[in-house]
């Protein structure tokens, strides 16, 4: 616990908070063994650049917030202080540990609870590499606060052109500011499927002068007033700094808090390592001295060369290496081909190895003739057998919990399958920039996924309805698995309904659709299906009350059936029959619905026998 004299606030001391974890596993499998902050960047840990920058920027006390692999970070800090690293001389470092935090927001809430910060402070997101002088920004923030009592945060941006590697497509942003640099609008455009943005009219009505900025690069640095932490505590759904900004802008009138923007100028540089693409970009920018005087300590001046080679690594004459960073004590065999790759320390590459656009962790061994290409990331200590070809994969040395036979590549090589769906894998594994391509072609360096997004013209489902639907599915699944009372589930669904402001019609439609969708997730079988439906019958009863609800229900069945082949083939008649027998659907409604069906569609052919049977049954009566 803390010493008393440490809590005492010391005058105008400049404090900074660094959150050392990124919580998104963007650097797995390497970050399975090493914390992200100790990732080597030009053969020096990332954290070293961050701390050096803070010291250089005029910070006197730093709180380093760690959530995982804390011992390694502590050990590193201890060693650096022993070696009298420049930043350790005039800057106090406190390591705060909280293993229960699961997001950036959690860390700040924890920090608020600890009550260590009193005045303004500098807030860094993980992985910052910069040479910005922070004191003038702090001073400016203080002046702004004097004029605008609501000002809580000044976010720091740097001007950067579209398409330069230093600007991550992930951070693509549109900001509107007034003449005082107050942020009126802030939107990350990367997350939008549609490339258009809608600007609220108020921003033009309320200020005389509005600047729209798109040429920005997030430095991931912010100057915060002391009220930022309580705001995080009050809004426990703020997970990231972007949530915070979005929340403040949306509820500006209620919270009365405002955000300001600061653009850095001249030879100041702000960058952050947030994914592999940025990792590559920051590496090259550091090498090209953009962050001067924060420059790699290279013995010989390597600026004219494409590569950065660590100490104790000998490059054989026949090696073909371009645009690579190679760590310390790497052993290279004969006839090696390396391009746009990062090889960390103590690796061993045997003869005829090819590595392209990939990252190789510490102490890996790659045997003769192997090819590692396109977005492959090897964790620490991986052993790759002879003549293996790896393309776009994540490999780690320890056996993961769920591992299929085909994923075992060797004693120390296991293919890692992220458990998310395809899209997310692509997002998590952005391609390293192919520098060769960007040199040879005049392509503006947009990644492929961007182009796909651009060609996406179909108008997307309204967000809220979509969210409501997923939430209903979640509630139902949980209810079914834990055998909960259906009454409680109805309560849950209704509260989601109000949260997302969904009309009654849509509620009926989505609930039925969700129940049918649940079947798709489960093992098949008629008995199981009817069991599922009977379990939810109180819910069905609750929602299918009148004629129009029946229509919604049939619409939902049709919708699910059309999108799902299996359901259509085998179950549609069964479903209709079940609903009819249990009296959820009246005969009249079904035949009405049947008449309006598109007769030529394959679907109506499937349903026809049932409709016919229904009609006959009616006549018999």
């Amino acid at each position, binding site marked *: *616990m*803390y*010493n008393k004299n*440490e809590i005492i606030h010391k005058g105008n001391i400049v404090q900074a908070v660094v959150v050392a974890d990124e919580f998104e596993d963007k650097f797995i499998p390497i970050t399975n063994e090493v914390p992200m902050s100790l990732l080597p960047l030009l053969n020096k840990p990332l954290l070293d650049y961050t701390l050096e920058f803070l*010291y*250089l920027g005029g910070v006197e006390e730093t709180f380093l917030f760690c959530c995982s692999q804390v011992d390694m970070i*502590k050990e590193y*800090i*201890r060693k650096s*202080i*022993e070696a*009298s690293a*420049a930043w*350790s*001389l*005039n800057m106090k470092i*406190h*390591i*705060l*540990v*909280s293993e229960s935090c699961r997001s950036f927001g959690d860390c700040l809430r924890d920090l608020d609870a*600890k009550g260590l910060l009193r005045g303004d402070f500098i807030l860094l997101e993980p992985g910052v590499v910069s*040479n910005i002088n922070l004191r003038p920004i702090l001073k400016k923030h203080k002046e702004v606060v004097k004029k605008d009592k609501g000002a809580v945060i000044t976010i720091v941006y*740097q*001007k*950067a*052109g*579209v*398409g*330069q*590697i*230093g600007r991550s497509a992930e951070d693509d942003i549109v900001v509107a500011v007034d003449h005082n640099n107050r942020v009126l609008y802030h939107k990350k455009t990367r997350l939008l499927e549609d490339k258009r943005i809608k600007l609220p009219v108020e921003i033009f009505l309320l200020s005389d002068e509005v600047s729209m900025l798109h*040429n920005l690069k997030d430095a991931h640095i912010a100057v915060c007033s002391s009220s930022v932490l309580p705001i995080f505590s009050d809004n426990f759904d703020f997970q990231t700094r972007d949530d915070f900004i979005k929340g403040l802008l949306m509820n500006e009138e209620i919270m009365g808090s405002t955000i300001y923007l600061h653009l850095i100028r*001249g*030879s*100041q*540089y702000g960058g952050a390592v947030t994914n592999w693409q940025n990792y590559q970009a920051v590496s090259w920018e550091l090498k*090209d*001295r*953009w*962050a*001067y*005087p924060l420059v790699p300590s290279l013995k*010989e*001046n390597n*600026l004219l060369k494409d590569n950065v080679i660590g100490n104790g690594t000998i490059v054989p004459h026949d090696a073909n290496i371009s645009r690579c960073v190679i760590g310390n004590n790497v052993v290279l065999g004969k006839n090696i081909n390396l391009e746009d790759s990062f090889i960390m320390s103590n690796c061993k590459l045997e003869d005829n190895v090819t590595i392209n656009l990939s990252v190789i962790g510490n102490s890996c061994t790659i045997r003769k003739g192997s090819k590692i290409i396109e977005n492959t990331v090897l964790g620490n200590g991986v052993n790759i057998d002879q003549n293996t070809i790896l393309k776009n994969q994540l490999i780690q040395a320890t056996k993961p919990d769920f591992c299929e036979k085909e994923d075992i590549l060797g004693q120390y090589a296991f293919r890692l399958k992220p458990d998310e769906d395809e899209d997310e894998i692509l997002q998590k594994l952005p391609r390293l*920039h192919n*520098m060769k391509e*960007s*040199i040879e072609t005049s392509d*503006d*360096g947009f990644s492929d996924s961007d182009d796909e997004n651009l060609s996406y013209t179909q108008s997307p489902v309204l967000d809220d309805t979509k969210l409501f639907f997923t939430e209903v599915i979640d509630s139902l699944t949980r209810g079914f698995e834990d055998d909960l009372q259906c009454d409680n589930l109805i309560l849950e669904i209704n509260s989601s309904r109000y949260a997302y402001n969904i009309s009654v019609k849509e509620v009926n439609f989505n609930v039925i659709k969700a129940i049918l969708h649940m079947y798709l997730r489960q093992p098949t079988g008629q008995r199981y299906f009817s069991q599922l439906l009977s379990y939810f019958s109180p819910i069905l009863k609750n929602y299918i009350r009148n004629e129009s609800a029946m229509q919604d229900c049939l619409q939902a069945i049709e919708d699910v059936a059309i999108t799902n082949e299996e359901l259509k083939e085998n179950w549609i008649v069964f479903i209709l029959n079940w609903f009819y027998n249990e009296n959820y659907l009246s005969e009249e409604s079904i035949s009405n619905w049947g008449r309006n069906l598109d007769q030529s569609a394959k679907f109506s052919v499937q349903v026809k026998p049932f409709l016919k049977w229904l009609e006959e049954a009616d006549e018999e009566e």
Partner: protein
Amino acid sequence: MATNIEVEHNNEDTLDVMQLISDIKHSQLINSYNTATRTVDFLKSLISEQEWTTAQELMDLVKKRMKIISTSLPYEVVSLNILRHSLKLIREEYRSILKKKKGEDLSPPQFVTPDYREVLDYSETLPDLKARLLDQLTEYKVEMETSCENIANQASEHIHTNETVLTVGRSHTVERFLISAAKKTTFEVIVAESSNILEGHTMANNLAEADIGTTLIPDTNVFALMPRVNKVIIGTDTVMANGGLRAQAGLYVVALAAQHYSVPFMALAHMYKFTPVYVGPHDKTTFDLLGSPADVLPYSSGPMLNKVKVFNPVFDYIPPELVTLIITQQGGNAPSYVYRILTELYVQEDYDA
């Protein structure tokens, strides 16, 4: 749960020098004069606070720190030169106290460099040494403080009425020098703006305010205007052992233009800028200091940065044959005389310390 680690520095004794290094590295000390005075203060605290009993021990302490500085700051010379000079002061003081003790005459006038080898070791404990060294350093600091003025006072010897002087960028010493000359004569100054940091603008402004006829030109016009110039006067970062200069990038071109038109090329330098290091133009480690490319091409330039490499060198090497005169607080000297100044400043055996 919060845990907190407090780690003590285990190499407490070299902490002082690490502080000095980080100050220099992070441009806390803006110009060489700041670095120089800071180094003298550092020396004083070293002498008065560290534990040492004999001169030899003190010299070892100083040498150890010089080693640390030269490894962590390969481009730093001023603080190393001052420490090197202090080694000589220590030897001199030791000798003179010892002689006094033995009852010899207090240093007869010496016309040759004293032979330091006659005192084989410096192991005797002399209680007076500390106090006398501190006195010497105070004196040295005063000399340093007045050196700028001393250099400026020589201005009237070099600048004559109606002459045209060319200078490049901004140097505090040159500014004082020119303003001092303007008190006695009228002359004109042409200031080359010193591209990408454009410090020449401030310089021109300051000179104009001191009522000197000033013309500001872009660096590219230096050659065209050189025939009209009577003298080139510049400041320098370092004077190398062969009389060559390590100076702001862009000055080599000016020196060549001056040579072409046979215009005298004069450099102003304080004594602490003389280093016993020899370098040639191909010495990468001493001259390839590169600054941020942002001074040349802004970061917001867009995709062209992916394809263009930008170099922004900080220093130029000017060979001694292009330098006419080096003016210090003790007067003007030809570059060929630098070796002599060096023997006055330092003891030969400390040259590579």
